[in-house]
């Protein structure tokens, strides 16, 4: 599977998760993400990080609740535990500790935490499923050089780890104790020296294998202008987005113009790079399916919030049980679909 397909799928689910605070929808969304990860992950180091994301998600919910209990603004409602209020000294104006914990307040905290947790777990799923090395191969040509540095970093890391172990072991031979400032220096310096010496060897090897041939030179004013325009638009657009009083065109439209300029500049700069790709990851039917699942799951919920906001944000005053609107159910099923569809027959 192309790594970007997983990213599109996961980002789609992330967007879907931010559209709702309905715990039933969020819970099912998280369940489908977990299902897909269990079904599709390989035994790779990055896939093993996924449980950590689940723990992180749980922590987010717990932290929200703790914050609500300790410093929350206590809204009226059904009181669950009546904690005494503790007033703080003058410098912390407006902050009160503890106070009566209400069901409504607690649920607001839990729902908000769940939404954030679901978002984080979606990112965790993308991290677990997409092979980062292969993802690096999909960087645009204009990022060839910096991308090469990252490729190098990712591929030498395991060797650096063993180099640290070797040096520490070797320093023992010299009678160096394993602790203390001296040991730190004695370990850090050879490791860094090795890495640096190695980098020059690597550069020689890359150079004599034709590396910089692919980068014939600067691509002139046009590209520079486009890139600067893109950055200017990013700064302006961000401001426009944040400042509610600025004219509406200063927000999203400017950002979009900037995006177009960035893509154009990047494509033009990338034309200068003449390198080719050996066996690029194919983007075919399965990739389309997986990406479409994520995108349509997001679209469904975006449209649903626009038409029927109440169903996706269950009312807390008066309290009501969260319902499961049919459109959300469809969205969740779409999210879980990659567990069974989009399988490639002969994985490379």
């Amino acid at each position, binding site marked *: 599977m192309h790594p970007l397909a997983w990213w599109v799928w996961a980002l789609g689910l992330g967007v879907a998760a931010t559209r709702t605070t309905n715990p039933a929808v969020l819970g099912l969304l998280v369940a489908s993400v977990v299902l897909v990860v269990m079904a599709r992950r390989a035994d790779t180091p990055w896939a093993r990080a996924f449980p950590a994301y689940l723990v992180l998600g749980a922590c987010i919910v717990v932290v929200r609740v703790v914050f609500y209990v300790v410093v929350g603004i206590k809204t009226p409602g059904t009181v669950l535990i009546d904690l005494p209020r503790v007033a703080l000294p003058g410098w912390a104006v407006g902050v009160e500790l503890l106070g009566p914990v209400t069901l409504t307040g607690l649920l607001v905290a839990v729902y908000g935490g769940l939404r954030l947790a679901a978002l984080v777990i979606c990112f965790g799923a993308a991290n677990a499923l997409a092979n980062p*090395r292969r993802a690096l191969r999909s960087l645009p040509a204009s990022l060839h050089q910096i991308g*090469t540095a990252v*490729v*190098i970093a*990712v*591929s030498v890391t*395991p*060797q650096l780890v063993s180099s640290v172990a*070797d*040096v520490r*072991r*070797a*320093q*023992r*031979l*010299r*009678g*160096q*104790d*394993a602790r203390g400032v001296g040991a730190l*220096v*004695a*370990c850090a*310096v*050879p490791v860094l*020296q*090795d890495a640096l*010496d*190695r980098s020059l*060897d*690597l*550069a*020689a*090897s*890359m*150079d*004599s*294998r*034709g*590396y*910089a*041939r*692919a980068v014939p030179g600067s691509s002139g004013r046009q590209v520079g202008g486009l890139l600067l325009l893109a950055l200017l638009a990013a700064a302006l657009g961000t401001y426009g987005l944040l400042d509610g009083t600025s004219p509406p065109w200063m927000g999203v439209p400017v950002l979009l113009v900037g995006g177009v300029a960035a893509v154009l500049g990047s494509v033009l700069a990338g034309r200068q790079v*003449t*390198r*080719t*790709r*050996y*066996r*690029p990851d194919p983007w075919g039917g399965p990739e389309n399916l997986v990406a479409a699942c994520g995108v349509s799951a997001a679209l469904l919920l975006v449209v649903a919030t626009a038409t029927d906001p109440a169903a996706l944000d269950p009312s807390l005053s008066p309290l009501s049980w969260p319902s499961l609107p049919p459109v959300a159910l469809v969205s969740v099923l779409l999210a879980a679909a990659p567990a069974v569809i989009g399988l490639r027959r002969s994985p490379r």
Partner: protein
Amino acid sequence: MIRFEHVSVTYPGAIDPTLRDVSVVVPEGEMCLVVGPTGAGKSTLLRASCGLVPHFTGGHLEGRVLVDGRDTRTHQPRDLADVVGVVAQDPSSGFVTDTVEEELAYGMEQLGLPPAVMRKRVEEVMDLLRLASLRGRPLADLSGGEQQRVAIGAVMTSHPRVLVLDEPTSALDPAAAEDVLAALTRLVHDLGMTVLLSEHRLERVVQYTDRIISLSPGGTATQGAPESVLRASVVAPPIVELGRLAGWEPLPLSVRDARRQAAPLRALLQPGPRGGLTGSVSAREAGAPVLVARDVHVRHGQVHAVRGVDLRLRAGEVTAVMGRNGAGKSSLLWALQGAGPRSRGSVLVHAPGARPTARGQEPAQLSPANTRRLIALVPQNPTDLLYLDTVAHELEASDRQSGARTGTTADLLTHLAPGITPDAHPRDLSEGQRLALVLAIQLSADPRVLLLDEPTRGLDYATKQRLAAALAEHAGAGGATLLSSHDVEFVAECADRVVVLADGEVVADGAAREILVASPTFAPQVAKILHPLGLLTLTEVRHTLGAPA
């Protein structure tokens, strides 16, 4: 194919040129070997032939170098990538990606070749260098020989006409070296590639070469057919030295050629009534056991690297551990020293001056500082021990750490390798000098037992001789030495005893002469030529020739 015209190279900051007025030609389709002592500019010559000197390293190049008609002054190394393929000394340091297949394709990606062509060439090169079985493997998991072949393959995919290799087999065990050399000869013979390589262990390559460029310490070069150049060369493999001694004509380069001419010499060396050669290589007498290891096991995760090794090292004895890569040699050495893991068994070292009946000490149970007073190890990569910015600082730190009198390490170093500037950066030293520095540091604690892991990697003949002398001296002073090595010539020169490991077990243990002469893989060249006489080294031949007179 490659033409040097009055080339002199001076590095920035250096006063004397590294190469001085070199004019040599490497014709197309030849395998050409660059020989010379350390520091004579072998690497510089190789790097000048692919444009890395001066474009990459800096420095000043006079004269001109033409590669397939392209002048390196106007062509950057990358512009020569489709003509010259370069393989560095440590192939793993030049890998950009992390799997075999991607690495093979990397150069072609940079040249912008169409995907279909890349696909075809990768398969071709895999067949040519027998890499197909390694296709998807991570580069870090490959053995040294496999890495070297992948590195050669990675430049071959760009279809260069010339291959330049810096010491391609120095770090390899004999079998892996054979693989790499076989691959190279196939490229020369079947494809008509031009190969330019340097190598310290001439005994391995000299028989395959068509031409030798010999560099002198001053940086001047002579070239010619191997027989004629080696006749006068300062560095020569044992076979050539024997040929020179016996006055053979033409000078033999392979064991086969030498044996054909050796019958008269063998007759001359035939043991007289006084008896054959059976004794120890050195005249030393082994004393009491200094180190006793029983049933040593080492496990690294799933791998059972050492399985129940019993070993005794005696005072005044130099023992060599031999065996394939991965046979457990390094693990054994580290376990004996105590710094490495040991899952079972015991190691006892008898302190100097203790009663012979007293129980020895376990190195693993002492603090690192105390361990090294008993038993010291020089690891395979001695540079790991060095962390300061000048030799002088390293020497001071060493005196302090071993609690020795100020200047002890410096004296040891001067003795082992004279002429090292104290202000030099340890990493700027040659491999031999670095080894000497680390050996001096380890000897400053005056250990009873000295362990060396592959000490001869990358050393030239002169440095090896000095190392052998240092080991003999340590043994002479009542110390015990254990070294692991693939270098049969060096082992024949200096070891009294040889232990052969295979798959973590001891398969042979005995006097060096018995083990080495009998083994087809571990026999030194002289022994192979003079078989069944049982002479191991040139020194012995000289000695025997001199004795009857």
